[in-house]
């Protein structure tokens, strides 16, 4: 007989609280970075070092020049701190560094909270609304920090840490659920597969949502004729580069979401004898899938890329939020596992 370890459950809650406090520090640091960046002046005379412009072989033998062709993309905007390949000029951003470092610390503490929760219940820690939220928040943070290895997305730090804080607070205030064993309907290994991948893809969509929102904001700013360097969006790269990154992440998210849909169908078949039944949760999972499929197609359709595609990415994410927060809690259906 499985028994629930309540002491460990209490440790888990403590870890969550500590993680939230750590993230708060990280949030403040990232916010300070954005504010501070407004005042950065870049030396205009400094010759910009084009990273991809010239690579030279051993002297004398092969001389190699690689440069943009006629299509051209080396738009060096006056006084911009970031180029179109999301490469930043050498800037001192101590606040952002602190934000990342403290964020990593927060993630470690947060992970400890999630793991102890799972250990306390002797199962994966995603069986009710509280656990979906806390584990989901952890994945959002993890995806963000992982992406930092490839791209300097620290300008998203405020948004991400802020959202993670909101999620942790929502978990603690709106969905508090004591550690408990799973109800029979959730006793399946598909819980491990289906829900984890669903939460992971939601975390990726969170990131692309932020990128798409900033893409729209930046586009708007440019249309209004304001200099690209002004205001809090100073550190935000160009709309084109935001769009490209959002596309790549959305593609990964879409693959994972397709898998979520599939795994969910297989589980539904094992549990209810039908792999698809238009249950409320299934409807919204389908809607999200179709919206992101639309997004991917839009990128390849003339007249639909750019701003319109960004809107689809945003709508898709709003559907994800709705599916998670509203459908789970308020809509009756077979997926009523919120534990509330």
């Amino acid at each position, binding site marked *: 007989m499985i028994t629930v370890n309540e002491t460990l459950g209490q440790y888990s809650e403590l870890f969550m609280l500590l993680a939230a406090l750590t993230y708060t520090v990280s949030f403040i640091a990232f916010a300070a970075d954005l504010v501070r960046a407004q005042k950065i002046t870049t030396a205009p005379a400094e010759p910009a070092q084009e990273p991809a412009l010239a690579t030279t072989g051993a002297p004398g033998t092969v001389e190699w020049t690689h440069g943009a062709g006629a299509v051209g993309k080396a738009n060096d905007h006056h006084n911009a701190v970031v180029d179109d390949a999301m490469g930043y000029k050498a800037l001192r951003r101590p606040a952002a560094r602190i934000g990342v470092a403290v964020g990593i610390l927060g993630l470690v503490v947060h992970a400890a909270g999630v793991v102890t929760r799972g250990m306390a219940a002797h199962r994966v820690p995603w069986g009710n609304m509280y656990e979906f939220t806390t584990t989901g928040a952890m994945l959002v943070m993890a995806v963000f920090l992982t992406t930092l290895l490839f791209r300097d997305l620290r300008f998203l730090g405020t948004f991400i840490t802020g959202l993670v804080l909101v999620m942790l607070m929502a978990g603690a205030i709106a969905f508090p659920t004591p550690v408990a064993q799973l109800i029979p309907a959730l006793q399946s290994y598909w819980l491990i597969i289906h829900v984890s991948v669903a939460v992971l893809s939601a975390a990726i969509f969170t990131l692309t949502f932020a990128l798409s929102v900033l893409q729209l904001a930046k586009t708007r700013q440019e249309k209004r004729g304001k200099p690209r360097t002004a205001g809090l969006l100073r550190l935000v790269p160009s709309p084109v580069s935001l769009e*490209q990154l959002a596309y790549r992440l959305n593609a990964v998210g879409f693959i994972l979401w397709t898998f979520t849909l599939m795994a969910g169908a297989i589980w539904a078949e094992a549990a209810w004898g039908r792999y698809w039944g238009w249950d409320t949760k299934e409807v919204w999972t389908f809607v999200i899938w179709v919206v992101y499929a639309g997004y991917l197609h839009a990128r390849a359709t003339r007249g639909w890329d750019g701003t319109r595609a960004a809107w689809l990415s945003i709508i898709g994410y709003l559907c994800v939020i709705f599916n998670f927060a509203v459908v789970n809690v308020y809509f009756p259906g077979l997926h009523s596992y919120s534990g509330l």
Partner: protein
Amino acid sequence: MTTTNLPPQNPREDVALPRLGPAGMLRWAWRQLTSMKTALQLLLLLAVAAVPGSLFPQRPANPAVVTQYIQDNPGTGPWLDRFQLFDVYSSVWFSAIYLLLFISLIGCVIPRAMQHWKALRSQPPRTPRRLSRLPEYGTMTVAAGTALTPDRAIEDAARILRQRGYRVQLRDTGTDLPSVAAERGYLKEAGNLVFHTAMIGVLVSIAVGGMFGYRGQKLIIEGEGFTNSEPGYDSFFPGTSFNPGALVPFSLTLNNFDVTFDRKPASYGNPIDFTADMTVQDSPSDAPRQETLRVNEPIGFGGTNVYLIGNGYAPEITVRDGEGNIALQGPVPALPTDATYNSTIVIKAPDARPDQLGFVGFFLPTAMVDENGVAFGSDPDPYNPQLNLNSYTGDLGLDDGNPVSVYQLDTTELTQLNGRDLPDGGIVLGAYQTYELPDGKGSITFDGLKRYVALDIVYDPGKAGALVFTTLALLGLIITLTTARRRVWIRAGKHEDGRTMVEYGLLARGEDHSLAKEAIRIGSALTTHWNKAHDQNRQATP
């Protein structure tokens, strides 16, 4: 005369649109339908159209709630119904959208597949005259005296490209300006086509299941059994082309049903285990075997699966009629309405004489009484089982031949004997108690308690196909979104001063954000190679 009265011009230019014959119209409509823009609009429309199905109750899922909704909203209800908002997923408009989408998809996939088939068998396209117009472009100059001829340079480049997975073709070798054309990522289009074709396969699989499959429900009380034949079902939904021969002749008996509830204070009363202990037979001639049926763990009988969907209590009842005869005896399933298994129960004794008897009320597994004297259930386990019933007499509505649900009793035409507001009060029956009805109409006894399981029995011949096609779709999707289709051209020539000039250009087909990286990789591979070759040359010939 003003310019507004221009003389008629060439009549051909007079009409805004060129005149289309019926065939032309069709061709135009087909081109519109299969265009990417239309496909995208249909896709987005599909997403929007699916939403109302989650906002309004749906008939296939819950017909009773729909009926109730229309009754509660006499103004809007019938209008919503007229627009099929209670049958969204079988509605004309939803069907129209997805059927158009699939036609558009087919119209898109077939020509693309043929095109890709051709592309697979043809060589990379000719080298453009001006490589510098391509999105990624670079040049290399190899010093004189390295003995690198243009042909040799192109061969080296071709080898490096082939190593990187390109299909290559050498062109103009032996001339002053030989070049290599290369293309890779044919799988991107193949994956795309597989994904879209698999979508059609999924739809076909759903259709096959809907046509040849069946689904039925059966409620089995402990100690009782079921054999797979249509009359044995409580409800049965055959596919549109269902053949009774598809019923596998299995049988099963529910020996025992175990329920375990969580007894931790924080999560008190949550179920943590449902286990149905069954004896099953694959066919009358097979030996019986023991099986355990659980939620998420169906029992299979050669393609037909039995699922544990629900459970509840079936109080054992005896109803005696006014003449002293037993009119009804046996367990009567009660439908749970909440997690505490507080259940509604309907008992019908149509063979009671002189008058038929009916009972409607609640079953509480563990009855408690609150400060107002109202009974409520406090635990899902049967610590103090109790029946709270109203009784009725009159025509129960079974004798006119219209099938009615066993869980419903229309009391409007009946005479009530017992109830909270009546002088005789409601019937409250603890275990093993008997209640004598007023006016000598008979009696009711609560003899005992059994558990039951609600089973779904499903045969879906499209299931395997749906799994295969969704798997293919996923694989196709992964391939198409992770591979890049690229073309590379490299051209070499000799400078007057003896240096070898090499230029390259790259072109992406479709989304490709690492084309620049690829250009750098190819460039550095070439540079490294020629540097090394030159070094070796120098060492070999001091």
